[in-house]
């Protein structure tokens, strides 16, 4: 194998998965570079979880090539599993054990684990180390899940909808944690249906809809590429609001300046947000 900077941690070509009559994944291609945070964004049922489960080695695929850290996850070995960390969508850990007991125990499974006490601190559970898991809140349990996902010091961390059910403050804390891990050099793939989460965390993202990748790139580039045009809004002299979609907003404003002598009431020029782009790409415009 040759050394080059853009070594792919995850490489997927033509991935397909069907459940009976339902096609969940319909030819997905992905390339995730070592060291980046990659977001898989899409509405519920778009095929994100199936894709991630196949990458984890926990689900068979019907077709396609998959390489994760240079190996096919369908034939996962113990050595491979020790290099991949997983945080599941809905998690459960043994309720009768304490946080510290659980994290220390899981550390034993790995050839070169991180320090359990340090990991407990990393996810902000120092104050709960001696508590039984059944006594934790939902958000604290999720942070324990992340602790168990990173205890083996993984090269690649796979997170499936990690913040579903979080309150806004808990979500911010979680984002900080992901950024910390990323700075340490962990490659991270996360699925989410929260656009702001993908925008806040991901270096690059793929928008998935109906089992296919409909757009891929850096968040800003996606907005640039798919969000052409602008909307000019103002109020007519009788107070009636008007809005015009245009590719030449400057010309529209110039025309308005000629019509209105002086200030144009309620003038607003807006570019599409990433959310507009996302809703358009996933065919959910009506949802607005």
């Amino acid at each position, binding site marked *: *194998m*040759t*050394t*080059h*900077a853009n*070594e792919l*941690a995850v490489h997927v070509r033509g991935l397909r998965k069907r*459940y009976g009559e339902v096609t969940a994944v319909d030819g997905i291609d992905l390339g995730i570079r*070592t*060291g980046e945070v990659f977001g898989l964004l899409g509405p519920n049922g778009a095929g994100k979880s199936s894709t991630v489960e196949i990458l*984890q*080695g*926990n*689900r068979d695929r019907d077709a396609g090539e998959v390489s994760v*850290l*240079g190996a096919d996850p369908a034939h996962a070995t*113990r*050595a491979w*599993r*020790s*290099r*991949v960390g*997983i945080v*599941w969508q*809905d*998690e*459960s*850990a*043994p309720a*009768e*054990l304490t946080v510290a*007991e659980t994290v220390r*125990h*899981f550390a*034993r*499974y*790995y*050839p*070169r684990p991180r320090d359990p006490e340090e990991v407990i601190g990393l996810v902000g559970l120092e104050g709960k180390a001696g508590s039984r898991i059944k006594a934790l809140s939902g958000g604290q349990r999720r942070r324990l899940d992340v602790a*168990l996902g990173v205890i*083996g010091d993984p*090269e690649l961390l796979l997170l499936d909808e990690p913040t579903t059910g979080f309150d806004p403050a808990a979500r911010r804390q979680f984002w900080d944690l992901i950024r910390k891990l990323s700075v340490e050099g962990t490659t991270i793939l996360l699925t989410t249906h929260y656009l702001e989460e993908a925008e806040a965390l991901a270096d690059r993202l793929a928008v998935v809809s109906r089992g296919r990748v409909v757009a891929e790139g850096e968040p800003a580039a996606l907005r640039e590429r798919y969000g052409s045009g602008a909307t000019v809004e103002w109020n007519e002299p009788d107070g009636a609001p008007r809005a015009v979609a245009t590719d030449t907003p400057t010309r529209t404003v110039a025309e308005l300046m000629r019509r209105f002598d002086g200030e144009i009431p309620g003038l607003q020029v807006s570019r599409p947000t990433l959310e507009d782009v996302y809703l358009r790409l996933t065919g959910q415009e009506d949802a607005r």
Partner: protein
Amino acid sequence: MTATAVRPRTERLPGVWGLGLRRGALEIRQFFRQRDQVVFTFAFPVVFLFLFASIFNDDVEGAGIKASQLYVPAMMAAGIMSTSFQSLGVSIAVERDEKVLRRLRGTPMPPAAYFLGKIWLVLVTGVLETAILLLVGTTLYDVALPSDAGRWCAFAWIFVLGLTACALLGIAVSSVPGSSKSASSVVVLPFLVLQFISGVYIAIDTIPDWMLNIGALFPLKWMCQGLRGVFLPDSAQVLEQAGGWEFGRTALVLGAWCVGGLLLCLLTFRWKNRREG
């Protein structure tokens, strides 16, 4: 391998036996922290022994024993099966449903370590259960400890083979229930039926032959019979279907179930629920 994609991993993966021991310690700790489970697991056979041995305590004609003495080895066999078959069948089904198994599968923990941990748990609880019943039986119900080394030895192998066979069957049966809610019904019904037709609740000489023959296909009947051979005087052999203790045959059947149970586990064990595919 590239320097950027793969950090050097020279350390070896932790060994299976060591991890199995650690999992065993963890399982035992979890078990004893669920106090209601502990109380019911250990009290159940003791309460049944007390009920049956108090209700039926007449002399058994021509056998030289009292009916209550029959219930000590019977409950001991049922206790071994409940700590292995029933507790594993239910607890593994719950762990699968609650996705504890799936999480373990996502780590480099070797699957064998999980099963070794379960075996340690069953061994500890099985020994405790048997010791409690032995204590109650010898102090209250005129059962004597085995008098010679041969019977102690038989006691040991019946315990080990019976516990192993039932534990393996428990692991296998855990894949049957669709969810943790149905787990205890699915596991308890066959266990209850077996207790009736294997001579646990009802004296062996009053059960119809065809029922006994069905019971004889499974380990429990042989565990009961073998333990009667260990703890009752030879004069009680007249009550047996074959008129003797049949130690050799018991060893064969239990040994066969250990092998068959292992195969069944290897063929049917699932880390995920059926619903999850």
